Each structure stands twice: as structure tokens, then as C-alpha cells.
């Protein structure tokens, strides 16, 4: 149980970072940015998706974690250097491009005629985006967020390296928590016998993870596909 809570908790922190930044980036790139800004900033943001997760883990464990600890100390808080906050935050950064690229795509596929209809009755650009474009693109955006959640749940290295191993049932983001993926790694690193109960537990966890992400992906892909058909 603490495992699932930890997984959900870290994924939640990650989404808190990634959804606003990713979504607003997607909107900005699709609606406001000049072709030049778009040409350069889109690949730069997508670099974030190409960086191996172990690199994020290293960064989270060595730079972000200690930074939070010193910050916490100066504020009079006890912050474990392996905190859920650091792991979630970095995971969120990793996920930004998944959300921004996909929502950029779906926003672009909203027909221009809808925007013109809105401008023509005197809406400003942001009103058009908020009240017409985003509602129209909503299924696609939700699909992209679901895919991102499934990424966050399946993410291993960042959590292994930055969030610690103690299975705490906690909602304090400053303590360390652990996730399903971390637990699998912890059980299977080292030379166990293949048929020990511990190993089997790891396989059971893996199966749970597989099914959970499969369901999420299935729903997400269905939603996105349906959305595409609507405007094709």
C-alpha cells in the first residue's frame, strides 16, 4: 500500500510541475510564438525528452536534493536529501515536452475557422484560446496528460536515485518515499535465486505496473485517436 501511495504521490508532484508548464508552453508555441521562436524553442524543449532518465536522477540526487535540504534548513524545516519533492520536480521537468509537444499538435489541429469565428465577434486572442480552442482540443490534451501520467508511473531511475527507498505512507513531500518501480529494482538488484518469494513479489509488482500503464495508455490513445478523427 505505501508503494502505491508513493507512486501516486510522486506522479502527482510531477504532474503539478509538468501540466501547467507543458500546457502553457504548448499553447504559447501553437498560438503566440513567431515561427522563429517556435523553430528554436521547440527542439530545445524536446531535448528534455531525449535526455536519459539516469541523467535526471543524477541531477536530482546531487544538485536538487541537497539544494532543497539547505533551503529547508534555512527555513527551519527538516528536509531529507532524498525527498519526494526533488524526485517529483525533476520528473515533472522530464515530462514537460510530452505534454507540450502533444498539446501543441492537438491545438494546431483545431480548425482555423473556429478561431476566425471567435475573432470575428470581437474576442481577444486569449479569450479565443480559453473559450474556443482549448475546449475543442480538450480530449487531445487529456490524452496527452494521461500518456504523461503513465510515463511518470513507469519512471524508475529518477526515483531510485532521488526519492529514497523507505516505504513511508506520507503526504509530506519533504520526506523520502518509494515507488513500485524502485521497489522492483531494490528487490532484484543482487544475486537472488529466481524462485525466491521476494523475486516473485517483484514480478507481481511488475505485472501490476504493466497492467496499470497499459490501461492508461489504451484510454489515452483511444481518446487522442477519436479526437483526430473528429477534425480530419
Amino acid at each position, binding site marked *: 500500500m505505501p508503494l502505491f501511495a508513493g507512486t501516486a504521490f510522486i506522479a502527482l508532484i510531477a504532474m503539478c510541475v509538468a501540466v501547467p508548464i507543458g*500546457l502553457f508552453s504548448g499553447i504559447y508555441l501553437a498560438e503566440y510564438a513567431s515561427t522563429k521562436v517556435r523553430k528554436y524553442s521547440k527542439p530545445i524543449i524536446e531535448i528534455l525528452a531525449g535526455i536519459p532518465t*539516469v541523467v535526471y536522477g543524477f*541531477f536530482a540526487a546531487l544538485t536538487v536534493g541537497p539544494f532543497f535540504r539547505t533551503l529547508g534548513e534555512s527555513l527551519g524545516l527538516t528536509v531529507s536529501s532524498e525527498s519526494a519533492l526533488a524526485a517529483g520536480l525533476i520528473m515533472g*521537468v522530464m515530462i*514537460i515536452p510530452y505534454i*507540450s509537444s502533444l498539446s501543441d499538435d492537438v491545438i494546431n489541429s483545431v480548425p482555423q475557422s473556429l478561431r476566425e469565428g471567435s475573432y470575428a465577434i470581437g474576442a481577444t486572442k486569449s*479569450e479565443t484560446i480559453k473559450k474556443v480552442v482549448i475546449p475543442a482540443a480538450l480530449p487531445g490534451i487529456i490524452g496527452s496528460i494521461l500518456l504523461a501520467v503513465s510515463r511518470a508511473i513507469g519512471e524508475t531511475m529518477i526515483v531510485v536515485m532521488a526519492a529514497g527507498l523507505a516505504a513511508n505512507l506520507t503526504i509530506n513531500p519533504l520526506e523520502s518515499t518509494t515507488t513500485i518501480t524502485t521497489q522492483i*529494482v531494490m528487490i532484484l*538488484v543482487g544475486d537472488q535465486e529466481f524462485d525466491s518469494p521476494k523475486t516473485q513479489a517483484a514480478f507481481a509488482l511488475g505485472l501490476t505496473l504493466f497492467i496499470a500503464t497499459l490501461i492508461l495508455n489504451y484510454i489515452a490513445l483511444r481518446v487522442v485517436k477519436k479526437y483526430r478523427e473528429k477534425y480530419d
Partner: protein
Amino acid sequence: MTKEQRLKKRYRAEKRFKMYGLISVSLAVIFVLILVQNIFSKGSSAFSRTMIEVAVNYDSSLLELEGPINQNSLKDADFYDLAVESLLKIYPAKDSKEERQILRLFSPDYEFEIKDFLIKNPNKIDQIVPVKITASDDIDQLNKGNFPRDLPEDRRRVSNYQLNIYDNLIEKEKIDKKFNNYLFTKGDSRDPELAGIGGSLMGSFFTIIICLILSFPIAIMASIYLEEFAPKNKITDFIEININNLAAVPSIVYGLLGLGILLSVMEFPRSTPLVAGITLSLMTLPRIIIPCRASLKAVPPSIREAALSVGASKFQTVFHHVVPLAMPGTLSGTIIGLAQALGETAPLILIGMVAFVVDIPSSPVDPSASLPVQVYLWSEQAERGFVEKTSATIMMLLGFLIVMNFIAVYLRQKFEKKWN
């Protein structure tokens, strides 16, 4: 509220909204910059290594050589006494404790470095020659400015006595930095100054090659079949949905698969690039099939019709016309898939690539590490020296990924030009 006030308010909302977008994009870009800057500033020092110049007295009597002096006899000789004798001369020591501290200024490999020098220059025997010897990690970090000197002695890794020697050596200009070739030629080590990514480079290389050999043909064939030959029915629909799903399954699940099937059922050797390559190719397959199919789909039907109309068979049409045209797209998809595989860590940890391997693997069935796993392993180490090594490894890894992605983008752009 008057009309003007309302309008003003609406424009303020407009500006605010635009600002949020701009801030988000800038934040994302800043994250990239911070990350890269952080890694580079930590890692760049790993490319140099601190050397201490020592006057070594190659006194043949200390080597206890039997018979004539030649390469073979030198290789078998024990250089320990000779080395220690010369090293201790760099600074006066009162007792054995201080002598130990002097020796700890050097990397534990000093004996072999002194030996290798003589083997390369056999004519120097019975002479006193200045030899540059790799400094220990603590001195290395001190020299690179990573250890603060003003801490009290018990919180420092370098004692006052060693600091005195260090300052003395600096004055005599005996301390020097040179390019760290060990980083690329050596395998893993417990000592940061001797650890290199040679082993994991080879490991990654073998892994990727195996992954390429396995996944590329299968992916190409599968996508050609699905796109060109397969009937459109429920089964192919089902397969299509599943391929898309599999591409998004967490990599650690593939690690479990590799562990469960390849290692425990088929009993392949643990920790080897062979198993890693097979596991990663399972993971990469769907990720390659998707872009392959997309690029096959992008070939206009008119090409197929043209070929069919001059009497080519379906098979000839596909393999003479469609596949060559789709090639750049499929290649770029494959490269991106392999780049992802190269950066993958979690499944490799599960199949035992975390073993401590000093030797550089010479074949895919030798135990080895890979670049990302090396990053993981070193990041768990306490020594300061490993931090820069890890960062340097990441720099190498990112370098490879950037090159691969550039090739992929180049190929894709070339391909896209054709149809537009």
C-alpha cells in the same frame, strides 16, 4: 463597469495569459540550460588528471632481477620496493604513519606506472629519472579546487601534513595537469582517479550493435507486412493497437521480461551485453515499427500504382519502389529508437549489468557495464572524484545521443523534402 474599463480588463487578461505562456516556455528552456551547464561544469574537470613529478631511482638492485635485463624480465619484476623508496624521497617523514600519508598522495597504481615507464624506456635503468605519477583522488580534487582548505583538519580528507607536502610540491612546480586518457582507456575501479569508461563504452557499443541487428530487420519486415501486405481486419487492428501500447510500456517491465525469460528460463550469462541487447531490442521494436510504418504510409499511392501499372508484382512494387523511398524515414526512426535504447538504464539494472566489472569486455558475452549504468553506479559512490567522472560520462552519453539525433533529423528532413 463601463465599456472602456471592461476593455482594459480584457486586455490585461490577454497580456497576463500571454505572459504565462512565455514564462512556461522560458522555464522549460532554462531547465535545459541549467541541466547542461550543471553537468558540464562538474564534468569538464574529469578530462584532466593531476600528476606529481617524482625523481625515480631505477636501481636495478632493488628489482631482484635474475638473468639479463630485457622486457620480459622487467614485466615479471616486483617494482614495489623501488617505487616506495623513490616516492618517500619527495618529503621528509618522521615515522611510518607519515610515510603512509605520503604514499596516499599517489594513486594506488603508482607501482605499475613506474614499471610501465621503464618497460617503455629500458635504457633508463640505473638512472634517476623524473616520472610523472597520477595523484590520488584527494590531491586531484584539491588541485582542481574542489576541496576547501580552510575546514578544520578532522573534517578534511587531506591532513595538514599532506597539505604541507602539496604546497611544497607546488612551489617546486612538480604538480602538473594532463589530459586524462585513463577516462577512456580504463575500466571501472574503486579509485576515482583510475576509473574509466572504457569498459562501459565497449559494453554500450556491443549492446547497441546487438539491439540493431535484432530489432532493425524485424521492425522493417513487420512494418512492411503490416502496411503493405496485411489484410485490414480485426486481428491486424488488434496488433496495431498493441504495438502503440507496447511503445509506451515502462522500460522496467522489459527488464523484468529479460530477467524472467532470458536469464532464468534460458539461462543466458548474466550481466552481458548479449542479454542487454536482446532485452533492449524487445523494448525498441515497437518504437521503431511506429515511425517505419509512418514513413511507408507517407509514400504516395501513385508510386505504387505506377509500378503496378508497368506490370511489377506486389512484391516487386514494395521492394523496388516503396521501401527504397521510405528508407530515410525508417532509418531515422531506427536511429531515434536506438538512441533511446542507448540511454536506457532501468532494464539493464534488472538483468545484472550493475556488477562491478574492471576488465574491458572483448566480446558480447563478457560481463560488462554500459554508459548509463555506469552513471548510476558512480553516482552512488561517496568520493568527490566520482562526481566529476559521472558528469563526464553523462557528457559522453549526451554527445552520442545528440549526434544520433542530428543524423536522424537530417535524414528526416531530406526525406520530407521529396514529397513537398
